[in-house]
């Protein structure tokens, strides 16, 4: 349209010029006038062009409340022609897919099959200890996540285990449009207990979970159920959460029938101290039921027995984490300190030595444990970490046969040192050495060499 306008203008100005203009000064004057008009129009044209460009750039934005969720950040375009927006937007609706690849070499001075945590009765399939010796595939994980529609997002992560099995670690939907700080999650998810529990294995700072988590939460407490979280409208971060579930894993054992087998409440708060420091602290409580839960125990004499526990378990978790980075820029150096205290109370009845005696009686035990760890990135790509673990098996109050299970007072403990090298934010190679005194009077020296890498979508990690 503008071109037409210009052409018409040219005709209107140009034609009469050719016929009417007679003398040289006149022609010169007219030429100058034309030049000035041309320059003026050129300027206006350029201004219009700029506005057109701005309008074009603004066009894909849902100005009229278009709920399209397609945003480059949510999707991972694998490849597209430069500047071809259509293709990029097509890819943008695909879920973000990430594959975590992990493998390890493990060397232990004691047989991992004989691993136990002294004074803690755990199910036969508890999966505690350093895992298998030698070369092994560590937990590799495939995860997918995307917004489902303007109201929900969904995510799933499938864990690939060294024994050729696949398990569903998480698979949940979550609301995005409740507003007012509320979000509801449904499906399978890691409970929001403590600091470490909701974190996936590939973001742990050590190869394994602390002893306290292994002994009291079945390493990591996952649940099938509902989770409601609310972030308070305050300047200080305050997040409250409530969870209901079937009581799937230890310390529960899916015994609720139609009812609810697990209830949890979580509370977290946090903030910054100046520009260089930040922190988060919380308190959580988990209540689960179990019925005829098979537990392995070691008698004072050293022989192993299988017991069955029925009753309820309450686990309190207090957690705190503090991070420091000069000017808040963690790229070069940073420090992370974290600690958690867990306290578990099991209350109910215990059928003792099912295979042999089979006597039953009331049972109550209060056990606790904590860990404290620090990780220091002393130069870009390199981090060193130290962790110490302590457990207190407490007293096991059995109606009968109490003496048989009595602990000899030695408390399980473990010290761990790790060094990792991160060529990029997607790759990590880690060396970890640990002195594990979870078994009575036996020292297990453990060495791990591990890689953890991720490909695909650029994952975003929580605090």
């Amino acid at each position: 349209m503008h071109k037409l306008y210009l052409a018409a203008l040219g005709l209107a100005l140009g034609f009469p010029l050719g016929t009417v203009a007679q003398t040289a000064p006149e022609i010169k004057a007219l030429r100058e006038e034309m030049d000035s008009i041309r320059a003026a129009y050129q300027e206006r044209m350029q201004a219009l062009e700029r506005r057109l460009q701005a309008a074009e750039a603004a066009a894909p934005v849902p100005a009229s409340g278009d709920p399209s969720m397609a945003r480059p950040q949510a999707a991972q375009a694998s490849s597209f022609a430069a500047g071809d927006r259509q293709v990029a937007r097509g890819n943008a609706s695909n879920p973000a897919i990430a594959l975590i690849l992990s493998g390890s070499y493990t060397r232990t001075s004691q047989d991992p099959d004989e691993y136990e945590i002294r004074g803690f009765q755990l199910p036969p399939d508890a999966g505690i200890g350093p895992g298998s010796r030698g070369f092994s595939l560590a937990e590799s994980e495939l995860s997918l996540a995307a917004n489902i529609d303007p109201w929900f997002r969904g995510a799933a992560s499938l864990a690939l285990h060294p024994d050729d099995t696949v398990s569903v670690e998480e698979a949940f939907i979550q609301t995005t449009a409740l507003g007012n700080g509320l979000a509801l999650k449904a499906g399978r998810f890691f409970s929001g207990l403590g600091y470490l529990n909701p974190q996936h294995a590939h973001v742990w700072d050590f190869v394994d979970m602390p002893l306290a988590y292994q002994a009291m939460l079945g390493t990591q407490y996952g649940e099938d159920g509902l989770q409601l979280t609310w972030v308070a409208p305050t300047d200080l971060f305050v997040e409250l959460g409530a969870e209901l579930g079937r009581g799937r894993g230890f310390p529960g054992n899916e015994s609720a029938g139609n009812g609810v087998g697990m209830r949890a409440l979580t509370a977290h708060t946090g903030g910054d101290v100046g520009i260089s420091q930040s922190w988060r602290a919380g308190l959580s409580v988990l209540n689960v039921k179990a019925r005829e839960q098979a537990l392995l125990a070691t008698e004072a004499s050293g022989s192993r027995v299988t017991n069955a526990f029925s009753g309820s378990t309450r686990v309190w978790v207090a957690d705190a984490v503090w991070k420091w980075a000069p000017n808040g820029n963690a790229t070069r150096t940073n420090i992370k300190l974290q600690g958690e205290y867990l306290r578990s109370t099991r209350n109910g009845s215990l059928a003792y030595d099912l295979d042999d005696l089979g006597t039953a009686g009331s049972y109550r035990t209060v056990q606790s444990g904590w860990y404290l760890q620090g990780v220091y990135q002393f130069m870009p790509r390199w981090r060193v970490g130290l962790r110490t673990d302590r457990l207190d098996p407490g007293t096991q109050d059995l109606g009968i046969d109490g003496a048989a299970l009595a602990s000899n007072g030695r408390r399980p403990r473990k010290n761990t040192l790790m060094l990792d090298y991160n060529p990029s934010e997607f790759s990590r190679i880690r060396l970890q050495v640990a002195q594990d005194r979870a078994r009575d009077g036996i020292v297990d020296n453990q060495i791990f060499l591990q890689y953890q890498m991720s490909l695909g979508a650029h994952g975003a990690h929580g605090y």
Partner: protein
Amino acid sequence: MNAKVHVCLAAALLTLWAVPVQAALKVVACEPEWGALAQELGGNLVDVSVATTALQDPHQIQARPSLVARVRNADLVVCTGAELEVGWLPILLQQSGNRRIQPGQPGNFAAADFVSKLDVPASIDRSHGDVHAAGNPHIQMDPRNIAKVAVALTDRMQQVDPSQASLYAQRGTDFARRWEEALRGWTVQAAPLKGVAVASQHNGFVYLYDWLGLKEVAVLEPKPGVEPTVSHLQTVLSTLKARPAVMVLYAAYQDPRPSEWLSRNAALPAVKVPFTVGGSEAAADLFGLFNDTVARLLAAATKR
């Protein structure tokens, strides 16, 4: 309860109700340049909080609890987009439980959507380093982009806070006028920089080069986002023998050592570019950012 108490209670409730209506629009900016722009365009109509500082690497920010709390209460989140904040912003949005600022909502503003991007890769492969599919996200280094984003942000503020639309329009026009004038000044001032060969520590200055006509002949990072190594610096040094550069540029948040090393060994000045508002003392606002950037480049170019 007598009538007086009722009146008092009603008054108190009304006050509570009225407060949010009069409150300023709460803006959370991911980077200082957008915080400064929102402040210019919103004035006393907005309450701006900035998630990062000029001394922090915007690629690598942690989703800290304090940021979740701020995003929870935000009416408008102003970020760069183009995957710059991909490692932390999605977590903040998810955890906040705030409907207004979710992707696709008017309260979610990505500046890079409103400018044409440079360095858009034809294919993405992580072996090329930290390459962004949407193109180079450091768009704030070209003041012409700031002008485009300002127009779009004014529109967005009017949309999110319609009761003040005319005031936003006024402020937007005023800013556009002042910016146009300043831009003319910088362009004239920086004319001698046209065609000058430079080296950069990170490929974060393409928009600056595009604006001023500077020519990038070397990058100190072997791949985008990968810290320079000694061996790569040696390679850069030998490249510069064949194609000499006049200066080496690094951003305020970056480790100055690689640039300083090159400065010593290739005998060329290392220029610390403020990169965003707050990156230097003079870069106290958006105008200061470009005043200072142009001044530093000119000083280095004439040092020869």
